[in-house]
């Protein structure tokens, strides 16, 4: 290795070592996203239409801009006691809640729907999905 490559290596290693020390403090980062542990499950909040549209009857929350729910969906993952624990991305869950909270009322155009948390169990075969009901709502595009 010539001197320039050695200098580049020294710079790179120093950045990695410093970042391991501070964690994440701009401009240093250990870029540890999703690296801390092996994941064997996943989850995502979505909506099931009672009249059965969408792939497997479940579609994204964002497909509907108007919402009226009997009670706001509780996105706390421990609400799904039958499935917990599982991997979830808090920011994605809170995006869902913010979308529903900010939505206007569907009026008479609402279709019956159930907000669910879909939980996948992952192994060496295809993913196995289970749904946990979070709220009953009416939705419209």
């Amino acid at each position, binding site marked *: 290795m*010539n*001197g*320039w*490559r*050695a*200098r*580049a*290596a*020294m*710079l*790179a290693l*120093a*950045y*990695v*070592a*410093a*970042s*391991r*020390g*501070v*964690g*994440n*403090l*701009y*401009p*240093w*980062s*250990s*870029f*540890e996203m*999703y*690296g*801390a*542990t*092996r*994941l*064997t*499950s*996943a989850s*995502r909040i*979505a909506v099931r239409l009672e009249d059965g549209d969408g*792939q497997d009857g479940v579609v*994204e929350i964002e*497909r509907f801009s108007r919402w009226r729910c009997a009670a706001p969906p509780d996105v706390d993952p421990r609400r799904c006691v039958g499935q917990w*624990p599982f*991997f*979830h991305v*808090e*920011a*994605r869950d809170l*995006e869902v*809640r913010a979308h529903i909270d900010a939505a206007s009322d569907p009026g008479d155009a609402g279709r019956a729907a159930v907000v669910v948390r*879909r939980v*996948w169990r*992952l*192994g*060496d*075969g*295809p*993913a196995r999905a289970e749904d946990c009901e979070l709220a009953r709502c009416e939705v419209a595009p």
Partner: protein
Amino acid sequence: MRLAWSGGDRVWLTRAIAAVAIENLVEMARAIGQGTPTPPHPGAPGWLLAIAGSVAATIGIAALGVVAAVASGRRDAAIGWTSAWIVAGAILAEAHAALGPGPYRGWFFVGAVGLGVVLGRLWARSAARRDLEPAAAELGALALLSACYLGAATSKLGGAGAAWADATTLRAVALAHAHVDAPGLSAWLADAPRVATVLAGATIAIQLGAIGLWLGPRSRVAATVGLVGFHVGVAAFARIGYWSPVVLLLALGLPWPRWIAALRVATVELGETSSAMPRADRRLALGLGAMVGLAWALPIRGYTDAHHRSRTLDTGDTVEREPVVAWGPLRAGEAIVDGWIVDAIEREPSRVMVVLAHPDDGRAVLWISAREPGAGRGSPFDRPGLRIAYEGADRARPFATAAGVVADRLAADPSVAASWE
């Protein structure tokens, strides 16, 4: 040493880096202005949250950063301009992180590249070779861009280990982010464990291969193509689009002057052999050593880690959980401080969940487990022998005081440590 911009006018490279910095600064200000649905960092200093809460302060800092970035893109710009936009970026990135969602790593790449530019130029000055500054800046930028990916790879290998490249981890990340009703790549990947294994292994290999960015011209192009492909793949599978590093990779990794004659000029380049500059190298080594030493010596990790509760135990197989009335010094229903009460205590084989509740501010959850001696610094509520990860469910009042009281009481009770045995 032949770099991508050897024989080229590096002012264009400097402008490309400045352009990414400007885009990031504007994006940071916009993200702060929009607010976040997540609870604020329980230990965030007031001044940082005050900046995040002030439109004028946010816009002002972003504007100063943009001015500095524009100035840094001029020919022969002072090092101070690059340093100034890094500082502006640091304040905005940390203010956004303190609002709740934690650090957005897509913004860190250009910060690291800027730091590399500064270090490279300082080295050239230290060697009394200002003629080498542009080339040394390019090498510094390349080195620190590669370090971002080396950090990502070593975090995976040091965290989950080789098991990260198994049939489940990458699928979990993709499924948690992708649209459930999108009949695309993610849905296909969900049912393709072997493909997931290959892609996860390739991810680590490509990230480790980032050292190719500074090994030689061919390895640089190969590493660039691999890393750009990695970012495109992550965007396609998991809807996580990091485009700033893609622009930086394309700017730093491809030999534009070789392809575009208008970019070619007479330049001073880094010699092929090791130009012995022991004094400058000693200063660089001392400076880098000081940087690493400070990073580990300052008590900053407790703060930066608090953005993330430990997800380690959230992700494995289901374990038995038993509600209990009391554990150690805590009893369900008892008042802690400032209106917070212990709402519930539930035991699992290797940890205990303590739910704190407040009549106005909702709930916060503490996950308490044994902490090995010498374990890395974790949340601000960790105590000797105790790992205390947290989840704040609401953004209103910080639960930090109550969590700290609980942590102190647990640490003072010998029956808690005995309960892991």
